[in-house]
């Protein structure tokens, strides 16, 4: 299933918290409500994605518990996560 499939049952990040993050950027004057919504939704997709990518490493280690090192491995290996390094 692709990233958008879980829209109906996935948990939702509260917009107020996402708004607080947007406000933290001194260069941002104002953001529309829609922009905050899309950012929240994107963050949810991001969490899904990075979790699945990290889990690959847990599987390699024959573990059923996702650990910090699985995340570190995923971040190092995957280009899109370079901004996290």
């Amino acid at each position, binding site marked *: 299933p692709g990233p958008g499939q879980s*829209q109906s*049952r996935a948990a939702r990040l509260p917009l107020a918290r996402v708004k607080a993050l947007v406000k933290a950027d001194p260069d941002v004057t104002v953001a529309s409500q829609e922009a905050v919504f899309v*950012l929240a939704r994107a963050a949810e*997709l991001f969490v899904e994605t990075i*979790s699945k990518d990290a889990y690959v490493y847990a599987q390699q280690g024959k573990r059923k518990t996702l*650990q910090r090192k699985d995340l570190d491995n995923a971040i190092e290996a995957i280009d899109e996560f370079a*901004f996290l390094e």
Partner: protein
Amino acid sequence: MAERPEDLNLPNAVITRIIKEALPDGVNISKEARSAISRAASVFVLYATSCANNFAMKGKRKMLNAGDVLSAMEEMEFQRFVTPLKEALEVYRREQKGKKEARKDKDKKADSEEQDKSREEDNDDDDERIEEEEPNDEEEVDN
């Protein structure tokens, strides 16, 4: 309240639930992994905001809009997010429109003198500033 951006985190319960829903049944997540994912999500939002803001500035706009965020996703190499985000945005717009219409009807019933003012077509109103209708609301996003 001057918090550093990196300290602004997203609710643990929601993050945990998203992780669990993304992974097969029976898989657990260590506290450290969950915490790291949560922090990564915050950084993602900060980075996406900054990127989106560049697009707004390029368009000589002060208000960051949904389109800017979608452009940011492409820029950040998360193109595969764009379609599901567009779909989610459509649903969100319809929901907002429904809420607005419900409110207008309530206003009309409550105050008949104001009818003329509220009757304007608001096609351009979708991309509006953050309103006071969120449950745990804070002040405007203005910096």
